[in-house]
């Protein structure tokens, strides 16, 4: 897979949440309900993705946003769109 680096122009939490929701829809178009919650706790976990869909999503976030996940992450970061977006915004500001 060719790694494409896309520098996200959005800097708000809500916009980043929206982008993550778009990415997850892209990797699991048939596995998700028409609408789903994107704000609040465990919003990603509640989608019930398979292990491999989850992996696809994580890799897609890396590829699209041009970074590599650190392993020493609190599990909460990958369980909700809000927490993941906050983490990504902090990463970009380093």
């Amino acid at each position, binding site marked *: 897979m060719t790694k494409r680096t896309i520098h996200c122009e959005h800097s708000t939490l809500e916009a980043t949440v929206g982008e993550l929701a778009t990415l997850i829809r892209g990797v699991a178009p048939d596995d998700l309900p028409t609408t789903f919650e994107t704000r609040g706790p465990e919003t990603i*976990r509640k989608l019930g993705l*398979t*292990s*491999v869909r*989850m*992996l696809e999503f994580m890799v897609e976030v890396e590829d699209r946003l041009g970074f*590599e996940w650190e392993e020493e992450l609190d*599990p909460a970061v990958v*369980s909700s769109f809000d927490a993941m977006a906050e983490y990504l915004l902090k990463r970009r500001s380093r």
Partner: protein
Amino acid sequence: MDVERIENFDLRYDDSGRLHEAEDGESLYYELRGSGPLITLVSTIYVMSTAWRNFTGDLVKRNRILTYDLRNQGASAETQAPFGQHVNDLLHLLDTLEIEQTYLVGTSISTLICRDFAAAHPERVKGLVLTGPAMSPWGPGRRKRIVRSWLAGLEAGGPEGLFDLIYPIVFGDKMIAEGRGATYLALRERFLAINSKAQLAENLEASLEASDDPALLHALSCPTLLMIGDDDFAASLGAMRAMISLIGQGAVDVIAECGHLPYFEATERFERSVQDFVTGVEEESIARTPKERVLA
């Protein structure tokens, strides 16, 4: 891990599944797909029955595939029972489905269930595939110490702590290196999502009841295949050779550059190994197959 298959993976409980009522009234979720020789894949503690769809895409084209959630797992009833109940549950499921004989495929801890079933009901098992066997030809000491260490990790750190213990030893060196953080985080997230601390503790405790008495291996009379990754923390080629010696017959397939879960890390080779074995038994050519193979 075969990344190209990722896009087709599916773990959903859907309309293809049914609920079976076990003899004590508890429900077990099962799926029956395909046609041909019947292969029953017995789930292990951390792997739901639906996961098998992703690792039997080729097998289902030539065989009938039966998978089910063990009790206290997935969509089956959340009731704990002695480890031996799993053998009774499988027997009752096969009886209800009017299945006289099946190939049995186990992985890790579920290889103990498969072994016990084949020893107790030899007339029902056409062939036995033990993937990443959790048993030892020399005794249960190491397996039980490992499980107790996992229970201690679970108690101290919850499911997250347990996953961090399991991940680096269950998955192969190569997969971990290639998968990097994304794989670790994704697999950890799903592990935490589908496993409660209570269920993990109950199922691990129950597995301590399983016996490693070598007499159980002596009791196996069906064609047997032992399948291990060459990077399996719990199964060495030497141990497999000793097990074959105890069983009195059988073969070993070694999956190169692979850890404890060949079906996950090397799906194509896992399926090829199982299919070759089934074909060998069906065509009565199993005696002429290599006793040891490395699938690279």
